[in-house]
């Protein structure tokens, strides 16, 4: 058993090291990413500020609280971008025969897929996220004590798992159709809209969908409710931080199953 763990750790760390080395070779991409990402996120939070100032708090969520939710969302997004960005390119990998290569190696293909790349450049996504989140914490008076930090870590990791799993689930369609790129934009949009704004602005049906069918509400809305003590028309005890990592884990298991189903189809129908 422990030799198995050692094996997986050694392979993962080798992939990680190589990924970082590879990305250091292309600094210009780093620069353009560095320019684009902060603009998008800061513009987003600015717009929320403008609306709240001209109008009112959204469904009882003041601007500090909105900034908190927004920033928390950016943290899990950033982590997902660092760990799971290859899930955006499953279609490309199918077309270029990269899964053939993985099938030729004596290791579980899902494992190879999950650890094959650490998107070092994605850390840039985390920087504005951290800034906005800390800003939100400060404004909302949220205390970053040790227990809260552990809870936060669970939420961020859980949120990243939910996001990553969703990309893998939708990306697995490429095993049948050889194309998955279009779904990436759609999924991103869906995730951002449900994580950037409090769920309560949406009608009841949409809230139900985003809780029980595509559980994006758990990425940062419900944990934020727990952290900030907001009781926002929630019927079930959903505002509990612990749900997020559980949902994340469950979705990842589902993603694994769907991925393997897709891989089986790929092995039967070729490329």
């Amino acid at each position, binding site marked *: 058993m422990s030799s198995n763990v050692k094996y997986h750790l050694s392979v993962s760390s080798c992939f990680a090291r190589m990924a970082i080395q590879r990305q250091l070779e292309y600094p210009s991409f780093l620069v353009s990413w560095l320019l684009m990402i902060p603009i998008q996120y800061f513009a987003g939070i600015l717009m929320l500020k403008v*609306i709240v100032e001209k109008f009112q708090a959204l*469904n009882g969520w003041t601007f500090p609280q909105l900034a908190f939710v927004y920033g928390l969302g950016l943290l899990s997004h950033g982590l997902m971008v660092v760990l799971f960005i290859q899930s955006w390119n499953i279609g490309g990998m199918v077309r270029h025969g990269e899964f053939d290569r993985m099938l030729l190696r004596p290791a579980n293909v899902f494992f190879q897929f999950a650890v094959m790349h650490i998107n070092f450049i994605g850390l840039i996504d985390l920087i504005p996220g951290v800034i906005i989140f800390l800003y939100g914490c400060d404004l909302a008076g949220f205390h970053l004590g040790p227990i809260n930090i552990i809870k936060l870590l669970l939420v961020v990791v859980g949120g990243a798992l939910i996001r990553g799993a969703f990309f893998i689930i939708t990306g697995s369609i490429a095993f049948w159709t050889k194309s998955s790129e279009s779904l990436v934009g759609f999924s991103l949009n869906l995730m951002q809209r449900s994580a950037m704004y409090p769920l309560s602005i949406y009608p009841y049906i949409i809230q139900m969908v985003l809780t029980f069918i595509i559980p994006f509400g758990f990425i940062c809305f419900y944990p934020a409710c727990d952290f900030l003590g907001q009781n926002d028309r929630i019927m079930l005890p959903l505002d509990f931080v612990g749900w997020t990592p559980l949902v994340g884990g469950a979705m990842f298991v589902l993603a694994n199953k769907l991925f393997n189903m897709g891989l089986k189809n790929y092995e039967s129908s070729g490329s």
Partner: protein
Amino acid sequence: MFAFIYLAKMRILTLLTYRFEVFVAVGSNIIMMFATVFLWKSAYIGIDTVEGLKEQQMVTYSILSVLLSTILSCNVQNIINERVRDGQVAVDLFKPISIFVCYLADDVGRVISSLLNKAFPLLIIGIVFFGVPYPRTTIVFFAFIASCGLSFAISWLLSALVGMMAFWVMELGNMGRVKDAIVGALSGRLVPLWFFPTSFITVSKYLPFQYIYQTPLGMYIGKMSLNEALTAMMIQGIWIIVLLSVCALVWNAAKKRVLTQGG
């Protein structure tokens, strides 16, 4: 002329075969539409008018903004980037038709295709869920259409400019997305600039971005009087001329660069 029509037709045909991509794009836009509309509804709870605008007007604004965004997505920046990367652009320079006309024809094909497969279904969905987004008056409607055409020109020229950067910077990378991010932020696509602090409004008047979304949309919901609308369209025209000149300059510089440096 026939070549133009043919190129546009080729683009329409290509996009027809990618039906899945089209469904997903429509889906993505539906999400944008719903998120924005509900955001405004939530903002307007218990409030009647802000800056002279009522809730229904902002809902209309949001629906039309999404429709407009499907038409304004220009691919020319990617095409130029690709052709420079492949070295194909040297070949393009010597074709009998000016390549800009080719790129334009391609994007016009996209516009027509988007009108049919994206804008139209999105409009239906918007009507079903949020009611018909009536324009303020019929005249305003025609002004809106004209202004949209001008918006497309501005947007296209900006894309072309970004694309041409590829001649100097080897790897454009995400520059296109940077431009889109800036446009998204400053064009009034989601939150029109009327709600922003005065400093923003002043600066934005001197940039081309608000004339892409805010101008036609503002006309449509009746935020502007007819005079103001005509003035705005003139400013759009001015921006088109400015951008055309800049493009021409950059294009000449690019051609010189290609001829001296090779593809």
